[in-house]
């Protein structure tokens, strides 16, 4: 593997003067490429005829090939043809004895990147190589990103498979208890086992729905139903959803509204954001705690929604990891709490889709506040990356 900022160049020409001239010009040449701190330099290899060029191309990897079109036996065009579509093929610049339009069109059709007409000056050579270098570098970058995406996807699927397997295994285990008649005499235990199965299946269903939400947002195929929305109405609906669970644990749900709470947005998106945040605020609260939803509409262009709890809180290390996919904070305090591990990841994506973001402030055993800021007109921010 060569150094990152050195590009390997093969010069294939039957004229010794051209080969040596190009080598001399390239030896000291430094080409700046946008986005890279250091200039690029070139490591040059030479081939005196088509056969030698073919051999070297088979044995080694080059970034750029300067290829004489009119080597004996028309080998130049044949080599170009061979290289087409080959994995890791160099970017080819044709060197021609005369610049004819016909030649240029044919070479480009065969996959040449550019061409140089003899005789050429060092400046012309430098221009062409600068262009070629930029292309090679952006190509490399694109390949690296694609590889990274594949890796991220693989890891996501591995964790997902694990998260789906766990509830299946649990339910299967309970079914085996029933099958083996372990609970036959005990209706109370049977009811508790069936209840637990339903809980695990419910968790699995939530995971699948979250996953669908996430996929739709990420792929951009989610249909946004934009319209006038009063955030206060969405908040009231979400609070209502969580009231039974909160009452069971003596948790008070409070709403504080300030200023203008109207938005131009997708009510479904706001509901998903609020559902996830309020759900967390209840789940990770202490019994007899408080959940406060504050909507701050004091500014003309932005709107803030803050959801606070008085629960177990998190350490700075835990909050730092929080928005990643399948991140669930595991410690003694969170032992019995279930979740898909996707909720906050979804909240962040949706907030960004609405031209905003989400932040978190937390202290262990005191509580946590999630603050979402959104563009009041989320249609204007639709171009944003989720």
């Amino acid at each position, binding site marked *: 593997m060569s150094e990152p900022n050195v590009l390997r160049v093969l010069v294939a020409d039957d004229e010794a003067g051209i080969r040596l001239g190009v080598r001399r010009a390239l030896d000291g040449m430094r080409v700046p490429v946008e986005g890279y701190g250091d200039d690029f330099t070139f490591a040059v290899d030479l081939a005196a005829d088509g056969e030698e060029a073919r051999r070297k191309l088979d044995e080694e990897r080059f970034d750029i090939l300067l290829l004489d079109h009119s080597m004996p036996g028309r080998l130049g065009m044949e080599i170009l043809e061979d290289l087409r579509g080959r994995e890791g093929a160099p970017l080819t610049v044709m060197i021609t004895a005369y610049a004819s339009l016909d030649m240029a069109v044919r070479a480009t059709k065969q996959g040449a990147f550019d061409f140089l007409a003899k005789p050429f000056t060092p400046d012309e050579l430098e221009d062409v190589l600068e262009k070629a270098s930029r292309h090679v570098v952006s190509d490399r970058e694109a390949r690296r990103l694609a590889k990274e995406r594949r890796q991220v996807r693989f890891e996501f699927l591995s964790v997902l498979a*694990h998260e789906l397997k*766990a509830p299946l*295994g*649990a339910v299967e*285990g*309970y079914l*085996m*208890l029933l099958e083996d008649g*372990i*609970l036959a005499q005990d209706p109370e*235990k049977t009811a508790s*086992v069936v209840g*637990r199965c339903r809980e*695990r299946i419910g968790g699995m269903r939530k995971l699948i729905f979250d996953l669908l939400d996430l996929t739709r947002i990420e792929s951009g195929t989610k249909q946004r139903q934009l319209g006038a929305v009063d955030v206060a109405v969405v908040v009231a609906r979400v609070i209502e959803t969580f009231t039974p669970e909160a009452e069971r644990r003596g948790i008070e749900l409070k709403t504080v509204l300030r200023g203008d709470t109207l938005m131009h947005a997708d009510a479904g998106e706001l509901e998903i954001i609020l559902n996830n945040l309020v759900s967390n605020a209840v789940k990770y609260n202490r019994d007899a705690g408080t959940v406060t939803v504050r909507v701050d509409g004091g500014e003309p262009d932005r709107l803030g929604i803050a959801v606070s709890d008085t629960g177990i809180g998190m350490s700075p290390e835990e909050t730092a990891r929080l928005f990643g996919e399948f991140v669930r904070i*595991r*410690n*003694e305090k969170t*032992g*019995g709490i279930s979740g898909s591990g996707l909720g906050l990841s979804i909240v962040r994506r949706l907030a960004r889709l609405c031209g905003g973001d989400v932040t978190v402030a937390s202290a262990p055993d005191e509580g946590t506040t999630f603050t979402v800021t959104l563009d009041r007109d989320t249609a204007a921010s639709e171009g944003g990356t989720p």
Partner: protein
Amino acid sequence: MTTPPEPKGAPCVLLVDDDRDFLDQLALRFEREGYTVITAGNEKEAGERLAERLPDLAVVDLMMDQMDGGFTLAYRIKQLDPAIPVLLVTGVTAETGLEFSRDDRGQQAWIKADAVLAKPVRFEQIQRELERLGVRHV
């Protein structure tokens, strides 16, 4: 967690796992076999249970909050009474590809357990291991 009343003469098993479902299922099966069952969801809880009562047998999950919680717990139990059989169950092979075995001579020296079973584990496998270890059945 739960400490059921002790029927006289019933053997006592300590079950330790952070997977609540696996723990409950195992508990129900051991109860059915006539055991008094003590459960713990992590190493710390297990320590508290051990301070209250020494079990006749322990089944311990290898990976809990701490990566090697099961190993240290097995070691502690053996320190309290080397005669208590300790079974380690572990999903570590499925999760990390690492393999542990009591059959490996090098590993016998440092794994302070009488058997290592890979998850998913069926109750019959545990029973078979107990028979092999000569643990008396009810």
